[in-house]
Structure formats: C-alpha cells, structure tokens
C-alpha cells in the first residue's frame, strides 16, 4: 500500500466484492443506494433502450449517473466498460454501437460476471463480452478502445490515478472517456476517508 492511499486496496476490493455479490444475487433487497429500473429512470436513461432489456440485465444496476448523457456512442465504436457489474451499461452501449461495434465489460466480482455473461448469451449479443479484471489492470490491449465508460466504480477504487492512467492506456489517441461517478461538495474528514466501511456504505 503506497503511503498516499487512504485505505488498503485489497481490503477495499474485498468489501466491494461482498457488497456487489449481494446486489447480483439479491437485487430485490433494499440497499443504501437505488437499483434497477427505478434507478435507470431516475438517472435519465432512454426509456426505450431500458425497456428493451430483460429484467436480468437491469435488476442489479447500481450506477450513480448516466455515462451516456454527455455523448451518445457512435456506431461501430469499440468500448470498454470499467466495472461492468451485471452488464446494464454494457448492454446499453451495445445498442448504441450496433453489431459492427464491440463492447468489453470488465469486472472483478465473479457473481456479476456470471450474470452478465448469461444475459449476453440469452440476448444473442455476440459483440458484448465480459472479462475478469481490475480497473487498475484492464485486460485490454493498448489503444484498443474508441471509448471507455464507467458508472459509480472509480470512487470505489483506492488508487484513482492508477485507474485513469490505465484507461488512458487502453484508449486510442483522441478516444473518449465518458463516465459517471459521485462527488462531494463538502469536505470529508480524513478520519472518515480512512474508514473503509464508509467507502461501500
């Protein structure tokens, strides 16, 4: 753990996995954040695009904003979804880039990966794939992506600079990073930043 990180990255990863295992397996539960179709509506996703997806693709959605609100993806683009969870944003992205595009979702929670892969199989979406990996070590070649999306994930990473460096690596020159995340308007005390329980709620 480098001295400028507020928490141990491995401990944080395990707590995040624990939380999102629950979101994958028991999406009907109440969490400290909204989930599913009500959340997608709250965040301004296009209704038709969400309605076209099966419940399985939407019920475990736990994003914090809309990464498509400032730019719609272009047909045939290659996209990486950092922290793809059960795949909701990846499937929205797949609809925008179309069959000539390609979407790779990367997640570190096995239960989420299994759920997203089963959904992709059921949808026959062969231009969407999901792979195991960390935001700080994306299993994607240098300069592969036209766009990188992410939603509520980078705030859960201990070393945010490493994540942005990694996203920069996988984007081609001129490529676009479009993501959603939380930000606080009031400073969080250092002792709270070191309290790992507060990172995952």
């Amino acid at each position, binding site marked *: 753990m480098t001295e400028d990180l507020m928490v141990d990255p491995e401990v944080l990863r395990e707590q995040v996995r624990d939380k999102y295992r629950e979101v994958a397996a028991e999406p009907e539960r*109440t*969490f*400290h*954040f*909204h989930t599913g179709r009500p959340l997608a509506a*709250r*965040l*301004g996703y296009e209704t038709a695009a969400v309605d076209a997806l099966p419940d399985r693709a939407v019920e475990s959605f736990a*994003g*914090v*904003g*809309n*990464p498509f*609100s*400032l*730019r719609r993806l272009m047909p045939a683009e290659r996209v990486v979804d950092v922290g793809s969870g059960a795949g909701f944003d990846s499937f929205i992205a797949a609809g925008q880039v179309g069959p000539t595009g390609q979407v790779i979702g990367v997640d570190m929670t096995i239960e989420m990966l299994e759920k997203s892969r089963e959904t992709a199989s059921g949808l026959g979406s062969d231009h969407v794939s999901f792979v195991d990996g960390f935001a700080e070590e994306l299993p994607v070649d240098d300069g592969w992506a036209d766009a990188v999306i992410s939603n*509520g994930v980078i705030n859960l990473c201990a070393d*945010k*600079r490493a994540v*942005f*460096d990694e*996203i*920069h690596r996988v*984007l*081609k*020159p*001129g*490529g*676009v*990073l*479009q*993501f*959603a*995340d*939380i*930000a*606080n*308007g*009031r*400073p*969080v005390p250092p002792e709270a930043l070191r309290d790992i329980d*507060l990172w995952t*709620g």
Partner: protein
Amino acid sequence: MIEDSGFTDVHIGEAVDTFGGAQGEPQARSFEVYGYAFIARRASE
C-alpha cells in the same frame, strides 16, 4: 487528476440526486454527495 493522466477537454454534467429517497440519503446529504457525468478525451498524438 483526470488531466494529470493525459486527458484534455474535461467537462462535467449537471448534478443528479443519486441517493434521494434511498437509505444512504442522510449520509449523502451530510457531505453534499451527488452523481455527475464526466467526459474527457485522450489527447491525439
């Protein structure tokens, strides 16, 4: 931090009340936490 990694043209969207009505709302309110969309571009070489 985004620019430190080599990104340019950074823009931030409107705040979204991500936690309103959720269990986490009191905690979010205490630190004025909202959701935002961000966009940035990797500089062309």
